[in-house]
């Protein structure tokens, strides 16, 4: 692990060095037109930092190209499934868990988080369909808030490991087996599953997100997971060590309760990993506003995690490294909005002083990284949807929306306003 990390750092460092060497001339050129401080700020955010991150990710993911398999386990496990007004999806999600090809027993704890719709009756409708080795229990949590619901479930867990699944995340048939094999063999504190977009057929906004999950999110998780430092074991589908989570005190009532928990596990020096072969299909926001709100929450969650456990408080060198890069993401969001977009306008008007040759270089490494991740996901043999309009929208509008929403989230966190549940 250390050797591969060192090799990755050398590769990314060489890339960074070359970029800087190239950027000096570029900056001199651009400074003829624009203030030098702004030019350097933009070059760092548009080329140096993303180039360093993406080249490292690309190289590391190549080094970890081979998909690891683990011996099968058949130990009993528990799934915590929280539902707040999820009448539309909860039954199908439970059904998906009951239909798992898992060798051991699965006990599903469905926590009804003060639902006011037909969630309860939907749960009871499928509850008795549980076959051999499968069991569904209904729990009720009156206190609104996902963290409370999760803690209600956690109190009932009797197995060494448990899995959390969102009410709108449908698990692929082997998902539980693979994530259990992984956590059992690697002794991780938490394992993030691989999320694909579920049924993205309705809106362009949903189709666009296929590629964010398929390429960006998966690339980052795999990169971090290779060094046991996946920064987000997302609540939508992850496995946890019961003992580790209990020691961390369970979930806190925060906007990004899953992020904060992962950070706390990492702070103790516990490994947080990623299993690409355990796939869940998650329902993504269908509207632009919904997506905006989700990304805003993620940004707040990231800052909550960062302020709960500062990068230098992290338990391992790797976790420290990755959380530092996460701080860099804030910089990237700003640079995209106030450096890249204006630079693009300038380029359209014939001035390539901001968005020029080095940017193309960066875009190229990004494309290379994405292509490699795409091939890797394809190789897993788990079906996912493709959509050309979605891909085009992903290229054209996704980053703008994501960065704006993230910036909004950072502002909210900064001014400590209270957000909403989910």
């Amino acid at each position: 692990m250390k050797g591969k990390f060192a090799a990755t750092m050398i590769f990314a460092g060489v890339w960074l060095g070359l970029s800087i060497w190239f950027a000096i001339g570029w900056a001199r050129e651009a400074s003829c037109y624009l203030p030098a401080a702004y030019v350097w700020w933009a070059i760092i955010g548009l080329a140096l930092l993303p180039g360093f991150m993406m080249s490292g990710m690309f190289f590391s993911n190549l080094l970890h190209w081979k998909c690891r398999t683990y011996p099968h386990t058949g130990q009993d496990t528990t799934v915590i499934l929280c539902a707040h007004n999820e009448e539309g999806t909860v039954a199908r999600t439970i059904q998906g868990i009951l239909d798992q090809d898992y060798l051991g027993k699965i006990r599903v704890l469905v926590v009804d988080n003060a639902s006011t719709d037909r969630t309860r009756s939907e749960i009871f409708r499928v509850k008795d369909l549980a076959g051999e080795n499968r069991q569904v229990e209904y729990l009720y949590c009156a206190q609104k808030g996902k963290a409370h619901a999760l803690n209600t479930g956690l109190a009932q867990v009797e197995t060494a490991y448990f899995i959390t699944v969102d009410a709108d995340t449908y698990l692929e048939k082997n998902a539980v087996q693979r994530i259990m094999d992984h956590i059992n063999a690697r002794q991780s504190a938490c394992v993030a599953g691989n999320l694909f977009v579920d049924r993205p057929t309705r809106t362009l906004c949903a189709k666009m997100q296929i590629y964010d999950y398929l390429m960006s999110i998966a690339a980052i998780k795999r990169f971090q997971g290779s060094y046991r430092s996946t920064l987000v074991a997302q609540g939508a589908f992850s496995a946890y060590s019961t003992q580790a989570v209990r020691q961390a005190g369970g979930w806190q009532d925060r906007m990004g309760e899953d992020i904060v928990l992962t950070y706390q596990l990492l702070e103790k020096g516990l490994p947080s990993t990623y299993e690409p072969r355990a796939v869940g299909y998650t329902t993504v926001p269908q509207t632009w506003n919904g997506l905006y709100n989700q990304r805003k929450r993620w940004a707040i969650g990231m800052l909550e995690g960062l302020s709960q456990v500062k990068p230098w408080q992290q338990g391992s060198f790797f976790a420290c490294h990755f959380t530092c890069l996460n701080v860099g993401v804030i910089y990237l969001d700003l640079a995209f909005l106030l450096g890249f977009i204006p630079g693009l306008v300038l380029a359209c008007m014939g001035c390539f002083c901001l968005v020029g040759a080095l940017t193309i270089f960066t875009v190229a490494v990004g494309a290379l990284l994405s292509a490699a991740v795409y091939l890797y996901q394809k190789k897993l043999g788990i079906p996912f949807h493709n959509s050309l309009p979605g891909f085009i929208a992903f290229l054209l509008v996704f980053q703008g929306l994501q960065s704006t929403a993230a910036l909004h989230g950072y502002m909210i966190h900064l001014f400590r306003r209270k957000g909403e549940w989910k």
Partner: protein
Amino acid sequence: MKRKNICFALFVLGLIATVTALLLWGVYSRLSRPPITQTLDPDRPMVALTFDDGPSPRYTPQILDILYQTQTPATFFLVGERMEGGRLLIREMKAVGHQVECHTYSHQNLSALTGEEIRQEVALAQEEVEKILPGHKFRYLRPPYGSYTQKVEQEAGITLAMWTVDSRDSEPGQEDKIYSNVVDHIKDGDVVVLHDCPETAKVLESIILTLKEKGYQLVTLDQLAARLTQEEKEALIIPSTWKGKS
């Protein structure tokens, strides 16, 4: 919730627009600089600096800055296919009073081309420059590599403009040599060839200052030609050797 999101997005959009406007203002303020001023004394010696192979997004701005700071007009021989990437630079050249001339469309050795191809090289470059400077007509062609034949002269349809002093600035890392190549043997009526390249950007300022110190007035090709006798002009256009030096 939704309204707040839209408001924030609009706020960010406004911020982006403001930054973009400031940047555009920064870029265009170069174009609106007052033209280079000079009063020519016909009795004092004159030298024309010419720059080939531009525009280069990297080096042309630096050269333009040095020329502007020292209030030196010059002549640029531009390559047609490179013009699209330097629209603002070309407009700036014209705006501050430099002379903009032709260095073919794709910088090929004209001596090796057919008559039709030679005409194309000039016509395409002319087309490109008119996209950026409407109505601009090239009056001089500097053949790439200084290479031409009688056929080139006839087919090109515009006057060939050569040089009398070669800076040899295409040899990298030789800034001192470039400086002395230009400065050591300079005389009245000389045309110096330089390129939009890193070495030139480094030594240009000291070349200009030295020439001015020696009492030379730095002028455009037009200004120089206006003062030359017919004989001198022909010597400039058709040098003693048929093939250029570099």
